[in-house]
């Protein structure tokens, strides 16, 4: 498993955590045991909901709520994971989620990194004011302009199409911000040298910046993919036809329709986070880098 230990240590000095109380033998061990105990408690608190989800997804409905709780099902009903595909068009939902997530991620990467180059490596009047406008919009609650966006989409007759979701999410300011943060850390001298060698600005972007910014691109890709995959309000507002629904909407509909079918609900929930789990385990170092980058300050 890759590590979440990603931020480079500020000083390359001795190991960060000297065993506390190393001067008094014995205390180090006690501390270590205490630390582990604390970690186990924390991990349990974090993981219990997931355990509940998994355990319930393998039960019959009438076995989900029992007193006392059975954390391990009496009989594992793997058939829930087969049945659910017939109950709701889960494959369609998964396909829709995948389509939206991939499309939006690609557009974000492409236009975001391109714009970030303009904002970080090309100097022209008005640039910083424009960037300020980008940054400013990140802080505005989305609900404040949700209604005008909706009216626009309605007038353009794009509601209940993927266009509405894609257009509204593909040009986010966050991607530009994140990529710019990374480009700022690449020395200008590199671009200068390339300019002197006769490379055009587009050439520098394509041949130097893009290859150098692979980690940042990966961060942005993962963050955007996960956000789009997990987005609920967007599809909830814009997609009314069942065949356009994403996994999130599909799950929700399942809850309303079959109120008592808790086991199925948990089966669906477990299935809906599987792709995210895969993406996460595959690229967690980039997630962390992306988040840490968004919190960078001077």
């Amino acid at each position, binding site marked *: *498993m890759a590590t979440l230990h990603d931020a480079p240590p500020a000083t390359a000095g001795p190991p960060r955590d000297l065993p506390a109380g190393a001067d008094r033998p014995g205390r180090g061990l006690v501390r270590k045991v205490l630390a582990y105990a604390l970690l186990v408690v924390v991990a349990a608190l974090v993981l219990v909901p997931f355990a509940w989800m998994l355990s319930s997804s393998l039960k019959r409905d009438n076995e989900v709520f029992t007193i006392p709780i059975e954390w391990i099902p009496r009989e594992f009903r793997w058939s829930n994971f087969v049945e659910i595909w017939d109950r709701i068009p889960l494959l369609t939902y998964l396909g829709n989620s995948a389509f939206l997530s991939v499309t939006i991620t690609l557009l974000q990467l492409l236009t975001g990194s391109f714009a970030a180059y*303009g904002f970080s490596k090309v100097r022209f009047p008005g640039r910083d004011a424009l960037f300020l406008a980008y940054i400013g919009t990140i802080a505005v609650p989305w609900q404040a302009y949700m209604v005008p966006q909706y009216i626009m989409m309605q007038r353009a007759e794009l509601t209940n199409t993927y266009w509405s979701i894609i257009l509204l999410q593909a040009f986010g300011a966050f991607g530009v911000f994140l990529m710019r943060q990374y480009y700022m850390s690449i020395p200008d001298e590199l671009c200068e040298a390339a300019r002197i060698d006769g490379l055009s600005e587009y050439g520098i972007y394509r041949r130097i910046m893009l290859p150098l910014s692979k980690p940042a691109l990966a961060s942005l890709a993962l963050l955007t993919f996960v956000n789009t995959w997990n987005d609920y309000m967007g599809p909830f507002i814009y997609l009314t036809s069942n065949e356009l629904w994403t996994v999130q909407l599909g799950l929700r509909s399942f809850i309303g329709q079959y109120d008592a079918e808790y086991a199925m609900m948990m089966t669906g929930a477990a299935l809906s986070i599987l792709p995210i789990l895969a993406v996460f385990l595959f690229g967690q170092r980039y997630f962390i880098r992306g988040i840490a980058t968004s919190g960078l300050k001077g």
Partner: protein
Amino acid sequence: MTHVITQPAPSSAPPSAGPRSKRAWRPILIGWSFILPNFVGFALFTLIPMLAAFALAFLDWDSYSTPEWVGLKNFQRLLSDENFHVALRNTLFYAAGHIPLTLIVALGLAMALNRKIRGVQFFRTAAFFPYITSLVAVAVVWNMLFNPTAGPINQALEAIGIAHPPRWVASTDWAMPAVIVTSVWRDMGYYMVLYLAGLQTIPNEYYEAARVDGANAWQRFWSVTLPCLRPTTFFVLVMLTIQSFKVLDLIVVMTDGGPGRSTLVLAQLVYREGITEGHFGYSSAIALVLFVIVLTVTVVQFRLNERRSA
């Protein structure tokens, strides 16, 4: 974020060509050519709607009527709208719970997980995973955990001797605390990562110096860790504030504002009035109030931060 805004351009003087010469236009054209593909979408679908939202708040406009300028009428209506008062109170309640709790839990997690012991990576991963888990799954699972009779939480509470535990999502008093607990659980990993990054920028020498001076663990935390984490804490606070005031999706899925109006928040009222009911003008007025609240709190935070670092 402050860094980006205030960062002085190291060599911002344009190449010293004649100001009116053709060459002065080149960087402008090139710069814009890079920004344009994103900017067109950004302007059209974010910037313009944002500006439109301001204007909309001063219009009387339902989905079927023609827009009419009514000045402050929408805002006057807010004063006597019971739903608005309830939503405002609930939003403040949520923020008052979510912001400090998430901050404390995230910092605690980061402190606990910022050590070199075997398996720490696993614990970090575990703490972070809720943040990227689908919100609907989170909401449904926690709703079940909070089940008043047979849910694990109340069974645990009864086991430790609490005879009548709260009815959580089924109770008007306890639904919001249940939502807050869920959201803290979901968000703590994200802020933990920010704090971990912050902790790793603190030079170890500071701790050694404090030890030499005889500071105990608690004193080291107060006099070294916390002051060094101030920039991180400020950023976390600003992000948490913005996030708290616009909470919507978790509530829509978990409680849909209920029971009664006990978890109705401002963002949800904006959604209901604007998109469900089609009261565009009135909805935008509520949104504007929400925006002004967030802006005010954020500006106050920036001011306090400046004063303390001065």
